[in-house]
């Protein structure tokens, strides 16, 4: 029985390896960019004013897909909150005592958390200039938040504040999209604000604004999910 199972595993792995090997052996680097990549490479700077082409594609050309991604994350956070709200511990009892964080973690967190939060904000505000953007910045914000929770398990952020940040930034994101449809070329068009000087912080129209909103929303969603995990009652 055991031998048969191991044989099946080995055969499956060999098949997977063969599939990857055929992909690898048949790989020929492209001689030139394909049509859509060529379009993005040639026209992004003129059309959107963004220095980071990836950001322009994510926020403007494929803005609707990004809205969908943000919605998926929102639904995940909402469902996690809904499921875990059943077993939320009473205010004082949550996370107390048994596994104290230790001096090193507490002191390190006190030094690092402000820097991590600042870096997250830097990443999403500069999303249109340098690699990074709303999702990355939001994840960095949330890792700052979870470091705070690890260092002080009894700590609470205000759920009301987090959900307010999340709803306001989500709503503002959709409103900016609709304004783009009315005043500019289409839903989520970034040309509702002046494109500005290429490469400066206040450039690329609405992209920095949208990325800041996405960053706040993603950060708030991840933080609220992690906090829900922390707040659940120990199974007795």
């Amino acid at each position, binding site marked *: 029985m055991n031998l048969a199972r191991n044989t099946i595993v080995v055969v499956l792995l060999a098949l997977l390896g063969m599939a990857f090997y055929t992909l690898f052996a048949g790989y020929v680097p492209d001689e030139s960019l394909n049509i859509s990549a060529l379009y993005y490479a040639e026209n992004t700077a003129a059309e959107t004013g963004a220095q*980071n082409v990836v950001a322009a594609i994510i926020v403007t050309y494929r803005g609707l897909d990004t809205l969908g991604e943000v919605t998926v994350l929102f639904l995940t956070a909402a469902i996690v909150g809904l499921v875990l709200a059943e077993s939320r511990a009473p205010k004082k009892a949550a996370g107390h005592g*048994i596994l104290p964080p230790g001096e090193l973690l507490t002191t390190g967190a006190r030094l690092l958390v402000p820097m991590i939060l600042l870096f997250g904000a830097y990443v999403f505000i500069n999303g249109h200039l340098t690699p990074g*953007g709303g999702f*990355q910045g939001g*994840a*960095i914000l949330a*890792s700052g938040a979870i470091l705070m929770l*690890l260092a002080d398990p009894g700590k609470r952020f205000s759920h009301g504040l987090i959900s307010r940040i999340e709803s306001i930034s989500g709503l503002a994101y959709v409103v900016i999209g609709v304004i783009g449809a009315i005043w500019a070329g289409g839903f989520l068009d970034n040309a509702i604000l002046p494109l500005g000087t290429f490469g400066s912080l206040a450039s690329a129209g609405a992209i920095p604004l949208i990325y800041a909103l996405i960053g706040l929303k993603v950060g708030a969603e991840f933080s609220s999910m992690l906090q829900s995990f922390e707040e659940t009652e*120990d199974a007795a």
Partner: protein
Amino acid sequence: MNMLLIPMALVLAVAMIGSAALALFTSTRITAVLASGLVSLFASVLFLLLAAPDVAMTEAAIGSGLTTFLFVFVLSRIRRESDQ
């Protein structure tokens, strides 16, 4: 550039496979969690080498940062509950 790129990518690939094997075969849970975080960290450096800094940042922040944190978090919960 290319002369340096290929050995570095090979080293990173071997390191990824090594830390994945460590995560599978180690006996302590915390080592397994850290080793699987290490796989993501090497993967993000590999993405950086392949000129995809945006993907590298996502991988570093979510794959090796948040996921590892989450596992550590849950592990400490499990330990706390089994102590009771």
